[in-house]
Structures are given as structure tokens and as C-alpha cells.
């Protein structure tokens, strides 16, 4: 791994200025994506700004029908949180299925969505739960946030502070994991809100997307059978070592049905 200058700011504003002053600075949160990438020399930042213990990025609370989770909250903390389990149990389940316990003890919500790995789980929840991403300078709606494979709407020196999720009437996440890494070959979050059903898909394509035909079918009848014969097109989906685009398209319907069934 190439060397870098290490900064441990004491506040969000110090973190923003450390990042602004750096040549090619990067934020370090749980390090569960960035450190592996740096070990393979696929990233070589000049400076690392460590934000994992900033108070402003921590904490879980409910406010006006929304659950708000600090960006530096670990997957393990989300899984264990009574507040999350009460408000949106599907979100605690999703966090509990990320990687392995050691990854969950370090990896964070903010790091996961900033990285926007196409096979990451959290983007499905952020989109299906009408997420809003609060940064040090603005609020970004979920669908504008995830702009492409490993890409987001964040500026280079912008820091995610918290993510707020709409508390749905019911929701569930179903994933077909890669057996080695647990990343999603296909993952589907189904959430029923007063305003309508949202179905968000990860793993299948280059970026998280909504399966709008499935949303319409489920608004008609919220039952797995409503998805019989409803499929996403394989045209834009990923073909790789693990699965062909056709197989992924098939899995999207299967996972969506499982998620609806799990909503109970």
C-alpha cells in the first residue's frame, strides 16, 4: 500500500477543511471497501481523513415518520439497534446480511453508499425507503444520489452526515448472495408506503434501479402472485462469472416475490 498523510479531525468542519486542503484526499470510514482497494493499489490517496468516530456522524433516531441514521453507524450497530428493529425491521435484517461479522463491526452506512458498489445491499434500502442523504452542505434524494457504477452525486470533498429513511407500512429485503463474499448477485427491497409500493433492485445491473412494473402490479394486489409473469428486461443487466443477465432477470422476480412474502 502506498503511504499517505493520516488525519483524525475532531469535528465535521475540520474534516471538510482537511479534505479541501489535501491534494488527492479521501475519507476513511470503516475502511472495509477503501483499505482492500488501497492494498491492491487500485487507489493511492495522498491523504486519508478518518471520520469513523465523529459524533456528528453517529446516532440513530426517529423523527416525523422517518428513521435517521448517522453515516458512521456500523452495519453491526444497525443490526443490533432496537430503534431500527422497531421502525424498519427490514433494514436491520439487511444490515445483518452484509458480509460477515467482522465487516459489519467496521463497515458503515455512509461508506457503503458513497462507494456505491453495484452489488452492495444498502442502496436497495435507500431507494425503496425514499431515502434522503444529508451531507455537510445539502440534502440529496436517493434516486439522484446513485448516479452510476461506483458513482454518486457527491462532490469530491463532500461528506455524508446521515441518511433518513421513510418508515414504510411494511418492507422486506431478499438477497441471492454470492456464496463467497455475500455481496448481492441480486437483492430486492420491497416497501409498501401510503404513497405506493417501491421495489428497488441491486446486484442485477450497474446501478440500483426501481422495478416500476412490479411496483404497479403490487399496488394492484400486494401478494407474491401479483408478480407472476412480471419480469425486468435482461437487456441492461450484468453478465459476469457469477450469473448471466438472463439468470439475473429471473432472480429479480424470484427475490421480489420472496420479499413480498416476507412482508407477511
Amino acid at each position, binding site marked *: 500500500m502506498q503511504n499517505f498523510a493520516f488525519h483524525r479531525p475532531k469535528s465535521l468542519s475540520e474534516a471538510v477543511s482537511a479534505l479541501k486542503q489535501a491534494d488527492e484526499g479521501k475519507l476513511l470510514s470503516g*475502511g472495509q471497501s477503501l483499505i482492500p482497494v488501497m492494498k491492491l493499489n487500485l487507489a493511492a490517496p495522498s491523504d486519508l481523513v478518518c471520520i469513523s468516530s465523529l459524533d456528528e456522524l453517529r446516532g440513530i433516531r426517529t423523527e416525523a415518520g422517518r428513521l435517521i441514521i448517522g453515516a458512521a453507524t456500523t452495519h453491526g450497530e444497525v443490526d443490533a439497534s432496537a430503534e431500527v428493529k422497531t421502525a424498519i425491521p427490514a433494514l436491520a435484517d439487511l444490515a445483518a446480511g452484509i458480509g460477515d461479522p467482522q465487516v459489519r463491526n467496521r463497515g458503515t452506512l455512509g461508506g457503503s453508499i458513497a462507494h456505491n458498489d453495484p452489488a452492495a445491499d444498502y442502496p436497495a434500502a435507500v431507494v425503496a425507503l425514499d431515502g434522503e442523504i444529508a451531507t455537510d452542505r445539502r440534502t440529496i434524494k436517493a434516486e439522484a444520489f446513485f448516479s452510476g457504477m461506483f458513482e454518486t452525486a457527491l462532490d469530491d470533498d463532500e461528506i455524508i452526515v446521515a441518511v433518513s429513511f421513510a418508515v414504510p407500512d411494511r418492507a422486506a429485503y431478499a438477497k441471492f448472495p454470492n456464496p463467497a463474499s455475500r455481496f448481492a448477485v441480486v437483492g430486492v427491497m420491497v416497501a409498501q408506503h401510503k404513497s405506493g409500493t417501491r421495489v428497488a433492485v441491486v446486484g442485477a445491473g450497474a446501478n440500483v434501479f426501481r422495478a416500476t412494473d412490479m411496483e404497479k402490479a403490487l399496488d394492484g394486489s400486494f401478494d407474491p402472485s401479483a408478480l407472476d409473469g412480471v419480469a425486468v428486461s435482461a437487456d441492461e443487466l450484468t453478465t459476469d462469472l457469477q450469473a448471466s443477465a438472463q439468470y439475473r432477470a429471473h432472480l429479480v422476480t424470484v427475490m421480489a416475490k420472496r420479499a413480498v412474502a416476507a412482508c407477511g
Partner: protein
Amino acid sequence: MATVSMRVNGKAVSADVEPATLLAELLREKLGLTGTHVGCDTSQCGACVVHVGGKSVKSCTMLAVEADGAEVKTIEGLAENGQLHPVQEAFREHHGLQCGFCTPGMIMSAVDLLARTSDPSEREIRDWLEGNLCRCTGYHNIVKAVQAAARAGRE
């Protein structure tokens, strides 16, 4: 170079490290604690698992500077007064190891599990050990050992 100070297995230690030094490198190369193994460069095998602040983490995926001020425990810190820790004893008793490469990480991970739940089901044990790969045992005896250690802990 940065100076880091932490408690490792109950003892205060300080060392000068480059920021890019991994916690696993500090433990193995500067502190001579080679019980912590490094089995991959993709953060997937779990041979390097240690406890930081009481939680199991992959020491190959954490910088030494991130552990500044922390309480770190490695496999060398488990035995007390020459007595193996109950999880170590159970691995020995139930043949939970063959070559032993994965064992330090397996044990550190299992100890974290048993600190959270004293009576895990077989499913919970297998799920918990998701991040620890073993190329030898086929896992059955590892699960048996963790179950035995859990029983011993409850008695």
C-alpha cells in the same frame, strides 16, 4: 511516521509506524505477535481476526493508526496463567484444527460470538463464522468445538 500507543493483551505498547501500516503488520512485524495470521490480500479469509475494543475485526483491513488508544486482544492474550482459554481447549479437544492456519482467527471470532450469546444454535455459529475460511477441517469439528465451549461456559 506516526507514534501509536495502545494496550495489547493488557500491556501498554507504543510504536512508530507509517500511516499505511496495517494493524496486522504492527502486531506481527513490530510486536512479534505472529499468532495473528495473514492468509489473503482481499479481506476475505479471517485468519487475521483480533479484538479491538472488545469487537472482532480483520486486522488486515484496519490501519495501525486507527487502533491508536484502543484495547487490542490477540490469540496470544487468551490463555491465562498457562491455562488455555475454554474456546482454545475445546478446539484442541474436538479436533477443530488440522494445519492450524485459520485457527487464531476462528477462535478470536468464536470468542466474540460467545461474548454476545452464551447459547448459540448451530445455524448461528455457522453464520457467525462466515468470514473465517478453513481449507482443512470442513468446519464440522469447528462448530462442535464452539458448541462445546458454549456449554462449558454455561456450566
